[in-house]
């Protein structure tokens, strides 16, 4: 039995970056990401990690500096939240288009306005299609393990893409959890030094980020898209290898109590812990519900999700973002599209919860279950909104 230690998840995330032996860190502090980058700054200043810590003046510069460092062949780390992620939005596409395996811990926070420092998924959902591999974490252990795995996934020659590791602001970043931190020796055995395909070096000059004429742009983007779609196989391999080495096995799509239930919740991130609690409570009342937890969001794990949905009748898609004028929230739209393409007839409901740090309690999920169970015969078509915002005062 290995030792688990009570530690703040943010501090554990920075230790994971250290264990991955990152060589360049460029970050700008923003709540609720602050503890990650503060602690990394300390680690570097104390000489515990041989890395360059670039104090940049904005997130735009943070991601730009990460791209430059990655181009020079360095293993690179950054972290941000909310407005910071939006400020670097333009460079997110450059990191993925130039195929830099940067790893970023995104500590999910609501976007202004109104100004909020609290958690939801509006930041990552606005950046979900930037060509990054996107992972979500349910607890602190997953954060540590995902950061270490992210380098192995992104740096694989078959992938070469940046990876975003999402953890919920405050409800995950600022809590103290029992976490097993692997030893440096184990991580070194699992994660070899980054061996870049191309680097900026005077001995072999190359051009990176050149202009793509109309004759080439489509082919260039097609190549990039193929890379992210094919990355899923490598992601699964890395998760398997991690499991064998460290004893904690992960999958792109994980399930909880789905064998017995034809009702499933689908959610992202730390909200899934409360859903599991609700499922356990429902069980004591003789009601069966399951959870489909998407750890991998990009590339979208269609096959794995389809397998998990086989035989299910009712699906409650839980999201922490407003659709912004869309028909539904992003994950719901994607699952509906997948179900339609596969001719599945699912009763799907879309619930928006936990915006801007509002508490999401297990009782909320019991309520969702009971609402959807009651709607067995009387499905009413909603005219204005195809989703329900939980706990909105009306």
């Amino acid at each position, binding site marked *: 039995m290995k030792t688990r230690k009570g530690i703040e998840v943010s501090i554990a995330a920075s230790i994971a970056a250290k264990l991955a032996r990152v060589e360049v860190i460029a970050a700008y502090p923003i709540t609720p990401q602050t503890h990650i980058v503060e602690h990394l700054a300390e680690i570097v200043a104390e000489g515990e990690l041989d890395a360059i810590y670039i104090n940049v003046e904005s997130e735009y510069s943070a991601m730009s500096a990460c791209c430059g460092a990655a181009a020079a062949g360095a293993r690179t780390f950054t972290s941000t939240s909310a407005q910071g992620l939006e400020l670097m939005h333009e460079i997110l596409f450059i990191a993925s288009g130039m*195929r830099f395996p940067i790893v970023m811990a995104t500590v999910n926070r609501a976007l202004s306005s109104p100004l909020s420092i609290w958690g939801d998924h509006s930041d990552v959902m606005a950046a979900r299609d930037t060509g990054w591999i996107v992972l979500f974490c349910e607890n602190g252990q997953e954060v540590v393990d995902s950061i270490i795995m992210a380098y192995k996934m992104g740096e694989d020659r078959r992938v070469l893409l940046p990876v975003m590791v999402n953890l919920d602001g405050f409800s995950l970043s600022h809590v103290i959890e029992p976490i097993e931190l692997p030893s440096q020796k184990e991580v070194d055995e699992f994660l070899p030094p980054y061996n870049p395909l191309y680097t900026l070096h005077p001995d072999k000059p*190359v051009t990176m980020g050149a202009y793509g004429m109309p*004759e*080439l742009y489509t*082919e*260039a983007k097609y190549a990039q898209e*193929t890379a992210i779609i094919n990355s899923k196989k490598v992601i699964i391999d890395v998760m398997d290898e991690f499991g064998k080495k460290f004893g904690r096995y992960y999958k792109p799509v994980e399930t909880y109590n789905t064998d017995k239930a034809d009702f499933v919740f689908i959610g992202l991130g730390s909200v899934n812990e409360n859903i599991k609690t609700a499922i356990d409570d429902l069980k004591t009342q003789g009601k069966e519900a399951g959870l489909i937890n998407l750890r991998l969001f990009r590339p979208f794990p269609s096959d794995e999700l389809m397998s998990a949905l086989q035989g299910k009748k009712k699906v409650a898609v839980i999201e922490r973002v407003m659709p912004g004028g869309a028909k539904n929230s992003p994950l719901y739209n994607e699952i509906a599209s997948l179900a339609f393409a596969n001719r599945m007839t699912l009763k799907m409901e879309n619930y928006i919860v936990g915006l801007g740090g509002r508490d999401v309690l297990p009782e909320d999920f019991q309520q969702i279950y009971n609402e959807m169970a009651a709607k067995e015969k009387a499905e009413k078509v909603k005219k204005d909104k195809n989703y329900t915002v939980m706990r909105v005062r009306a």
Partner: protein
Amino acid sequence: MAKPMDQYKWHELNVGCVIEEIGNSKEYNTGDWRSMRPTWDDAKCKKCGLCWLYCPDNAIYEIEAGFYRANLGYCKGCGICATECKPGAINMVEEQR
């Protein structure tokens, strides 16, 4: 590049579109969006080479007898040469195509 740009298939491109060949930008004639072109009045030209020096695209070259001309494959018609020319020997005229 080993072949014309419009013949590359997606899987033939380098990862991240990295270009390993040095200076291959000269293969691409980027002058085709020009709306103005520079013309030289050699009678006014002092052969100082300021146009050659200031051209941001290295599109100006020296001809025999020390006068200058623009390579229209690369000249974008920006007019910097005409602005910098002290004796006023360069005149920008509308491109006829």
